[in-house]
């Protein structure tokens, strides 16, 4: 029953001696790293949320005096930077880390220690960005850091923190992209062909490619900003022949694929949740996958729609208007296929499902307002107004966050073994849904009525008062909903109902193993026979195409690992814990800290480099598996 692994030299069992915080610091288990990403993302979600509440409080009434202009500019810059780089990306990374290997039937990612390194670089990058508040102020030049505003006043280090912080986070993302791509292409279980991969795994793969190709572009730009600020280069200084608009191209050539980096994982989650709770396979599966790939490709060809007022000339404007319009086609294909999925299903409207349905409803609004941006003349009115703020919150909150929330309710039982409370979950959903629309729907009107973004105050008499107050009320409702979610987490982790291995009667491999999964994921690497393999092991179909349960054991194939007691993994090769990845990341943190304070900071740069090299050196020499009692 519990077969030996394929290559059966009796290696010693991996060390489990460490407990507590040290176990987390040294872990190379993709599941633990996933949890680390998830908890960090939640912590930063609170930070970014507090920043948002301060913004909304300041704008509740005309001529608000809660924040100074200086503090306000820090808040909106750091709110965006935090939410994009420290919340949505790591939250998606959390799900990808935890579930990608399981979904494709693997025991870990391709490079477990690189995976740990990615997390620790991300962690220190987030810490670095957040620490800036206590070391001279948070970044205040916008998350898009337009030059020459971002390169002026080099004696104020805020934008150095921003440029270096994003650079560091980019290193983490590139490393994990390489890791995920390699995992997907080399570690799928037998029979798990690419087209049988769950859609979430597909979207994670597309995202990895997007990051791999787009981050180097902004990395160059960020170096140039840093050099302009600290080394006296003049890349973006118009008076000396530099070009500020070049920065916009570099930033948005990264920045637009980044938008799809944020939304595609949520689309992947929705594509898992809808079939499960409709009790139907995903409608037009291959079309959903290929439209995701198409969005990924086309995402590199629309960046200049962020620059329709920069003066690109009518030919470029018309070109990017057309590409932007046509990226709506694959997006529409996805929405229609999701509708096709729920059509004719038996819909179980639990919290996970509600968030996925909410995703479709809200993302549609964001998509449609996005089409209005592609109308260049109309965009010349909407650009840099609250209309745009409304649009991308419908995409990134109504879209990405709703999708991620759906993923939380869907997978929490797998990760913890406990079900989240459904009654608290529904309170959470409806508070989020109402709060979200109260906050962001009014911004459409504000923008069209002429309120620019990034303005810390507005005089009375422009007609902005009512909508702003409404948006502020809504933001506090959202804050409340987050508290309900946290309470649900804490309470359900302690007192939640036991989930069992397959609480949703779901379709994919993660539900074939215990909740929480054993450290080695699968006692026996599954041999995949079909899409939604787990479902087909449970059900066959009758002539009318309706599912018929397979009587346990009747299939003649012993695939019931539900009662897996973990005894069978003796001798399964798993990566050992290692503290070298965290050490190498710590070195980078020290070095980057030094780079802010050149020239004397160069000492710290040197010290950090030594620590990082020490980390890599130890890493390369440590045995893959060793006793560590």
């Amino acid at each position, binding site marked *: 029953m519990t077969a030996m692994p394929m290559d059966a030299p009796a290696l010693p069992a991996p060390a489990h001696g460490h407990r507590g915080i040290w176990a987390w610091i040294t872990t190379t288990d993709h599941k633990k790293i996933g949890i680390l990403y998830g908890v960090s993302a939640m912590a930063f979600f609170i930070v970014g949320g507090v920043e948002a509440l301060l913004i909304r409080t300041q704008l509740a009434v*005309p001529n608000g*005096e*809660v924040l100074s*202009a*200086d503090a306000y500019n820090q808040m909106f810059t750091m709110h965006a930077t935090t939410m994009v780089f420290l919340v949505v990306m790591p939250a998606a990374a959390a799900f990808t880390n935890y579930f990608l290997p399981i979904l494709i039937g693997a025991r870990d990612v391709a490079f477990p220690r690189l995976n740990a390194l990615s997390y620790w670089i991300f962690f220190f990058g987030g810490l670095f960005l957040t620490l800036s508040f206590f070391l001279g102020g948070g970044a205040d030049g*916008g998350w898009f850091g*337009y030059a*020459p505003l971002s390169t002026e*006043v080099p004696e104020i280090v805020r934008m150095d923190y921003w440029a270096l912080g994003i650079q560091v986070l980019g290193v983490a993302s590139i490393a994990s992209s390489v890791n995920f791509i390699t995992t997907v292409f080399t570690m799928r279980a037998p029979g798990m062909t690419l087209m049988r991969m769950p859609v979430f795994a597909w979207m994670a793969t597309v995202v990895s490619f997007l990051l791999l190709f787009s981050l180097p572009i902004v990395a160059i730009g960020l170096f140039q900003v840093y050099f302009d600020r600290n080394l006296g280069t003049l890349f973006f200084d*118009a*008076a000396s022949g*530099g070009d*500020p*608009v070049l920065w916009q191209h570099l930033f948005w050539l990264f920045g637009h694929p980044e938008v799809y980096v944020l939304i595609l994982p949520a689309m992947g989650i929705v594509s898992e949740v809808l079939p499960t709770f*409709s009790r*139907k396979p995903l*409608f037009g*599966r*291959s079309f959903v996958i290929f439209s995701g790939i198409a969005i990924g490709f086309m995402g590199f060809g629309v960046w200049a729609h962020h620059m329709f*007022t920069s*003066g690109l*000339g009518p030919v470029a404007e*018309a070109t990017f208007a057309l590409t932007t*319009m*046509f990226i*709506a086609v694959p997006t529409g*294909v996805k*929405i229609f*296929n999701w*509708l*096709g999925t729920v059509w*004719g299903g*038996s819909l179980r*409207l639990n919290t996970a499902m509600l968030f996925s349905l909410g995703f479709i409803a809200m993302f549609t609004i964001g998509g*449609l*307002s996005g*089409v*209005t941006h592609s109308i260049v*003349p*109309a965009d010349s*009115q909407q*650009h*840099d*107004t609250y209309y745009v703020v409304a649009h991308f919150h419908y995409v990134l909150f109504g879209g990405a966050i709703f999708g991620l929330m759906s993923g939380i309710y869907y997978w929490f039982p797998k990760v913890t073994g406990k079900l989240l*409370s459904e*009654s*608290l979950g529904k*309170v959470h959903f409806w508070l989020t849904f109402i709060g979200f629309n109260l906050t962001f729907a009014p911004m459409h009107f504000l923008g*069209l*009525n*002429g309120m*620019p973004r*990034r303005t810390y105050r507005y005089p009375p*008499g*422009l*007609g902005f008062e009512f909508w702003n107050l409404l948006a502020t009320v809504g933001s506090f409702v959202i804050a409340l909903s987050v508290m309900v979610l946290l309470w649900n987490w804490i309470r359900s982790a302690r*007192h939640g109902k036991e989930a069992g291995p397959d609480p949703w009667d779901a379709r994919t491999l993660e539900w074939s193993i215990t909740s929480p999964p054993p450290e080695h994921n699968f006692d026996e690497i599954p041999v995949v026979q079909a899409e939604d393999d787990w479902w087909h092991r449970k059900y066959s179909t009758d002539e009318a*195409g*309706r*599912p018929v349960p397979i009587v346990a054991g009747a299939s003649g194939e012993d695939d019931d690992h539900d009662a897996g007691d973990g005894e069978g993994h003796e001798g399964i090769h798993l990566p050992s814990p290692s503290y070298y990845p965290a050490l190498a990341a710590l070195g980078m943190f020290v070095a980057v800290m030094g780079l802010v304070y050149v020239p004397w900071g160069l000492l710290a740069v040197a010290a950090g480099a030594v620590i990082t090299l020490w980390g890599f050196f130890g890493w390369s020499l440590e045995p893959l598996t060793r006793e560590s009692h």
Partner: protein
Amino acid sequence: MNAGATGGRREQGRLARRVGLVALVALVALMLLLLSACSGPDRLGIEDMGLGDLPQNSLNPAGPDAETIDNLFWLVFWIATGVFVVVEAGLLLIVLVFRRRKGSDRPVRQSHGNTRLEILWTIIPSVILAVIAVPTVATIFDLRDPPSLSDDALEIEVTGHQWWWEFHYPEYGFTTANEMHIPVDRPVYLTMTSADVIHSFWVPPLNGKRDVVPGRFTNLTLEASEPGIYLGQCAEFCGLAHADMRHRVFAQTPADFEAWAQHMAEPATVPVSGPASAGYKTFVAVCAACHTVDGTDANGRLAPNLTHLASRTTFAAGTVSNTEEHLREWLRDPSSLKPMRPDLNDIASGRILGMPDLGLDEQQISDLIAFLGTLE
């Protein structure tokens, strides 16, 4: 805490309600706190200008360019609304019809897709988008066309500064700040650049916005069909006082505009006696490094030209109405009216970030205000 499955469920429901109640109370308390949060004084008085409810609205076009944009927007808006209604109503309907009812877990047909449907819902959106694309592309080229010679466009040179606007009228040879006057029914062709960072010039009722970029010249055509005051403000984040970088356009009949322009082209006269004369001396000593008053010894080029300050309705980049009381506040402590960074000023290199606190005494301030009052 939990006593059995059903008890636990009831308990959970009760708990959820209780949490909801507590949360609601907390929310109301927070909102009350918020409403009591102080709101700063209004020194601009837009409400008293009689400009209607939405004086900066992009949906109340007051000229041909804004009108073209508006028409295109509404075309797309109604198409988008159609799609919105179809998708959202469809979703809602599907959820209502196919939701699982208690005790009826009927088996579901496992359909995997339908290629014809896929083709259909690829083609229909493509066609809709093609319908939108044609007028969009045409309008892009139309709006970017500069006015032709026969249009007899008025040219104005715009320079963005942190944080104010400079307007130069080359035909008349004068320079002013933050308040632009234009004749109605005549295109105005703006040639714009920036002295420092990127700004964006935007008067929503008259046209879309256009970025103002250092080292480049960008153009924008404004045309108003009716005389009136049109409000706008900088639309590209440009640093500390981005929110306080406002401008307004006065559209006037051709005769009124001509009279205004001729008046603006006249230099100021140096006052010879009284407090205005004392104020002038202070001005030349303290203010002239940055400010110009044409026809006097004050010829600094880093801050707004003040030759006809008294004829403007606002100062401090269109954020403060031009009253004696406000001027007094401003001269006492400029940064209390508008955030600036005068500590970073470098007059020698020609880069300033706002008006410093000049440390004037009350007598000097009164004299200065007397002098500024002569600059009609």
